[in-house]
Every structure is written in structure tokens, then in C-alpha cells.
């Protein structure tokens, strides 16, 4: 990414610059921030941007992972490697542990999506985090399109879409009372395609699951799921080998793969430029429940 001589930035440089500004603003103004890290491509980009924002110093806040216990092993592997390389503290909030303690119970379909929220909120309380960085983008979903970069949450972590703080210029308001918090979305203005262009430009390591490979899959509700311990085929679901890749890294039991030949980043970019389905619509069983599924979860304190 070299600078053009006429003092213009490419769209990726503009987005990067805006994100760095957001990271530094939070570190300067919020008392105890943490970066939510899931191991997916967005959080990999986030961690990279956080590193750049404070380089050559270390990232001045820990990373927090709400581990559902149903992550793809590769994702956990990348999480641990990156935390180690960047010498940043990793805090894991475990959903299975919370289930054992009786704090939460999974939904009948096995989804642990909703029960991540109480586990997240318990971790926020325990570590007294006042600001949490999330990798959500406004192009992902309709309610996210209306959320601020600095999203105010009450003491229950709830989002009130009708009562958001106006956000002007690059002046962010991170002020809170005791118990309240701010969710911060440095990638708000990035699209899925921007994220991939950036991963390519910066040569970032992402889980191999994003690339098309021959995998054992079966069909359920019109979507292709990888057959594994966390997601075994039920009676009557026939396992086949297909060339597939993942567009998102959700829980292994609910994240579907898509048929694809995109086995390199360049081919993924080509594919996304032509695709006719959103990443969540194509691959996330958990977002299909209702038109307002994401909005409802956010109101409860979800990202």
C-alpha cells in the first residue's frame, strides 16, 4: 500500500486509518477495554489493526474470547498463535463451564449462540471491562446498519436502538456511568470484500476452513454441514464428499459450508464479488430464525 503522489488514499487506506483512530481513541478514553476475538477473519483483521495502532508498543488491552466449546479446532489454534506472537493477554470465557455451573442451558437445536451473552456479560463484570471491541460490520445485517461505531450499553449490556448517541465527524463519546459499557466496532464501514482485500494486501493468516477443499459434508435444511464430532449427521442424512469452503466461522454445529472452488484468497475475492447471497444468509442457521433475530440478540446484550 504505497501512497499516491496526489495526497489521495485508496479506499482501504481510508478504512484502515479510520479504524486505527477508533482503536486509539478507546485506549485513550476508556478505562478498561478488551478486544473480542473469535478467530474469524474479521477478528483477525481487528487484532492486526490493534497491533498497528499501538506499534511498536504492545496492544494495551487484553483479548477476550467467549469459547462456546464448539469452535473449529483450527480457529482456536490461530487464536492462541496470534495471542502468543503479539504478547497480548488472552482471557477465555468458557460456555461449557458456565453450563456446568448452571448459569446457562443450550437451546433445543443445540445452538449456544444466545447463551454466549450471559457468559460474555459475566466476564465483563468479573474483569470490569468498560469497553469491548467487536468485529461487526454494518454491511452484515440490517440492524447493524444503524448501530453506532461507539455503541452504548446499559448495565445489562443491552442496546437501545431508539436511544443512540449522535455520532458526528470523528468525535466519539465513550463516557459511561459505573456498570455501563461501550461496544466499539472499528470495522463498521468495512464490507466483506474490503476485509478480504485487506487480508490479501497484508498477507494475514486465516483458518484454512475459508478455502475450498474436499470435505465430508451432509445436507440439512438446504445447507451443507461438515460431518464432525460436534455435528454428526442424523439418520437419513447421507454424507458426501464435496468441494466446499466456509464464509463465516461460527460454531461447528451450526455453521454451514458453501460449494466453492475458491482455494486462494484471490479466488475468494473473485467469488465474493460475484456472489448473490449474504454471508450470514448463506451459512448461518442461527440468523435464519426470524427477520429480527440479530436485533433481538443485540437488545439482550449480544454483539
Amino acid at each position, binding site marked *: 500500500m504505497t501512497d499516491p503522489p496526489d495526497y489521495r488514499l485508496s479506499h482501504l*487506506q481510508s*478504512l484502515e486509518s479510520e479504524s486505527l483512530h477508533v482503536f486509539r481513541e478507546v485506549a485513550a478514553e476508556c478505562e478498561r477495554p478488551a478486544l473480542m476475538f473469535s478467530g474469524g477473519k474479521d477478528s483477525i483483521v481487528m487484532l492486526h489493526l490493534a497491533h498497528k495502532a499501538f506499534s511498536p508498543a504492545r496492544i494495551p488491552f487484553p483479548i477476550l474470547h467467549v469459547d462456546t466449546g464448539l469452535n473449529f479446532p483450527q480457529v482456536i489454534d490461530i487464536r492462541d498463535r496470534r495471542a502468543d506472537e503479539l504478547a497480548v493477554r488472552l482471557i477465555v470465557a468458557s460456555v461449557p463451564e458456565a453450563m456446568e455451573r448452571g448459569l446457562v442451558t443450550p437451546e433445543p437445536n443445540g445452538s449456544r449462540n444466545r447463551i454466549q451473552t450471559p457468559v460474555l456479560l459475566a466476564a465483563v463484570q468479573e474483569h470490569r471491562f468498560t469497553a469491548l471491541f467487536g468485529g461487526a460490520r454494518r454491511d452484515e445485517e440490517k440492524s447493524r446498519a444503524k448501530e453506532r461505531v461507539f455503541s452504548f450499553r446499559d448495565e445489562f449490556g443491552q442496546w437501545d436502538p431508539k436511544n443512540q448517541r449522535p455520532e458526528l465527524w470523528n468525535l466519539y463519546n465513550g463516557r459511561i456511568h459505573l456498570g455501563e459499557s461501550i461496544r466499539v466496532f472499528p470495522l463498521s464501514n468495512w464490507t466483506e470484500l474490503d476485509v478480504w482485500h485487506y487480508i490479501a494486501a497484508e498477507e494475514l493468516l486465516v483458518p484454512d476452513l475459508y478455502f475450498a477443499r474436499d470435505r465430508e459434508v451432509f445436507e440439512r435444511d438446504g445447507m451443507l454441514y461438515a460431518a464432525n464430532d460436534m455435528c454428526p449427521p442424523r439418520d437419513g442424512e447421507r454424507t458426501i464428499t464435496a468441494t466446499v469452503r466456509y464464509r463465516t466461522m461460527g460454531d461447528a454445529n451450526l455453521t454451514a459450508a458453501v460449494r466453492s472452488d475458491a482455494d486462494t484468497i484471490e479466488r475468494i475475492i473473485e467469488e465474493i464479488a460475484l456472489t448473490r447471497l449474504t454471508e450470514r444468509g448463506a451459512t448461518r442457521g442461527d440468523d435464519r430464525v426470524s427477520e429480527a433475530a440479530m436485533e433481538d440478540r443485540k437488545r439482550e446484550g449480544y454483539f
Partner: protein
Amino acid sequence: MDLLRFATAGSVDDGKSTLIGRLLYDTKAIFDDQLEAVERTSRLMGDDYTNLALLTDGLRAEREQGITIDVAYRYFATPRRKFIIADTPGHVQYTRNMVTGASTADLAIILVDARKGMLEQSRRHAFLVTLLRVPHIVVAVNKMDLVDYAQDRYEAIRNEFTAFATKLEIADLTVIPISALRGDNIVSRSGVMPWYEGPSLLHHLEHVHVASDRNLIDARFPVQYVLRPQLAEYPDYRGYAGTVSGGVLKVGDDVVVLPSGFETRIVAIDSASGPIEEVFPPMSVTLRLADDLDVSRGDMICRPHNAAVPSQDIDAMVCWMSDTPLVLGKQLALKHTTRTARALVKDLQYRLDVNTLHRDEDADSLRLNEVGRVQLRTTSPLFVDPYRRSRTTGGFILIDEASNNTVGAGMVVGAE
């Protein structure tokens, strides 16, 4: 490929949602599953057509009430440019939302219904986007299909708007006749209006020249964060991180640090991609200086012969965004660049009627969505520029210290 941010302003039935739906659809930024969801909802609501407006109604309350509550951000790209749309609703909380959406916009599209012509709200939209100094304005004369694509309708509206615009300071005005519903003059020039010789809307958005809108003269670098790694590899590193607000800064430049007034020199600039020789707005970088000075967040690095003037008396246009009115003697927190001070409302010179531009000099308060000229006294000096010279060092927000809410937006007229 560069980036263009634009805001759209229109009233309830101007066809704004249809226009945005059309732009997204024609540039393939709408996905099949989104379209299916919209088709499904349209049927449930009893519409006999696919209501593209539903694409932009994100929240449950909005769908239930058929209104838009908040600014929504949309994204699309063409091979030439990436676009960010700030879609601002025209009715509920209009001023607050429009001001928010316009604050970062390079361009604003104001929709006018060809049948109705310029309405009071069109004037209001034009005033607000010029108040926020959006450099480029497009008036989209929509629903041309409903006036038989009549040239005289378009020209009447264009002339009326141009006449009104002379009261405002509009740098660049373009008036385009369109039909969002039928796609005329949206992506390409339409054959049904051969008398119109200008560009299509998308062509204009792709080609409008925005690089020169930035201030590349007045070097302004608000210090955002001080980097002192204190690691074995970097024992003495001390860098000042921030976003360039104005001007061009180069390695070797003499600079002055406000408020101390100490002069020093830039010895190195670190960017996201490594060391770099010169930087410009809006790059986020880290400056290293020749001397070990006491520089902290909220300080500002400028050129010795062109520095911002520190001031505690701020004269500004304020847009009020809270249910609790702004009154004389009110104390607020004021955030300007990376500096926060406390501000006292000393005087309200006048309240401006955003529809007629009439100045009410007897006003003693600003209520929700009202705009007025306000004098503020701050507890510590701010390094401001007039907003007309710089949108980043001329803009500030006001925060209620009890609720912590952002309650006002200010644009500096002058400072003493």
C-alpha cells in the same frame, strides 16, 4: 479506487428509499436472500409490489410503523469508487439525523418530487447540508415519469433551487432529473429525457472531484495517544499517535506544539505500513520529534508560522439534539479533536429558523432540533479553526455531564 461518502436527504414520499434501493440493486450490492426477505415482507404487509424501501428499514419498530428512525449506513462499489451512504430519515428527529449523516459526507443528495417542486423541507435540507459544509450538493428531481419527463418542470425546479442557493454558500451544485422507480438517469443517461445533457447520477458520483475538498494548507495534528513502548527493542521510543486533521507534514519540518509553544522538528513518521516521508489528512500516523518535550493527548502539533489560535471564547453555530433545552448558564462538556474541556453557555445571539433562515434574536433557549449562534467560554484553551476552513478542527460535540449523552453539535464561526 477511492472512497466517497454521501448523505441522502428527502421527505417521506420523495422516493429516497426507492432511489437507494435502485442504486444498491443496479450496482449489485443487494443479495438474493435480502431481496427474498424483502419480497416476503412486502407480501405479508399486503403490498402488491416489492417494496425496495424495506431494504433500508432495519429495525423492528421501523418495519412495524413503516418509518425510518435512525441514520442507516449502506455500502456499494463500482470499479471506480467505493461508496458509503448515510441514509438520513426526513421526518422524525430530522435535524439531528441529517446533521449526523452530513458531518462526514463529501456529497449530499437532496431529493425533490418533480410534481411538488421545492417544499419547505427541501430548503431545510439544503440549509443543513450547507451548515455542515458538505462540499458537493446534488438535487435529484425525482418522479420525472409522473410529469411526462417535462423539461419545463425540471427547469422550473432547477431555477427555483439555484435562486434559493444564492442565500447559502454552496460550492458545487448539480441538478439531475431522475426516476428512481424506472431507473432513468440513475446508472446511465436515459433516452426519455434527451433534452438533459448532464451526467447520470451514478456517473456524477463516480467522477465528482473530492480530493481538493480537504485542507492541505493548515498543518494540524491533534495528539491522540502517546506511544512509549518501554520494551528492550525500543528503549527510548517516544511517538505521538494521531490522525492528521489538516495540511501536509514532512520529516524534517519545523513544528510547534500547543499549548506549550515549544518548537521542535519532526525526525520520523511511522505509518501503518512502516516509516514514511510525508503525511496528509486523514492518515492515522505516529510522529517522532527531535526534542524530548512534555507532549500529551489533547496537545496539537502545527507549523510555527501557521498555528491554530488557542482560545477559551468560542463563537459557534450549535445544533441542539436533546429533549432538555440549551439555556444560558448551562455547563457542558465539550469535545474538540482529542481535547475535552468544560464549557459554559455565555450567550445565545440568535436562534435560526431552519426553514426560512429567519434569525430570532429574542430567543433564550434552543430546543431539540433547533440551531442557533452560541457563545461558549471554556475552562481550558481549545485550538480551533473556523469550521468553514476545516471541518475537523472547526467541529465539536457537546456532552451532558449528568447523562453522558451527546446533546449538541457545534461549528466554530470564530474564536477570540
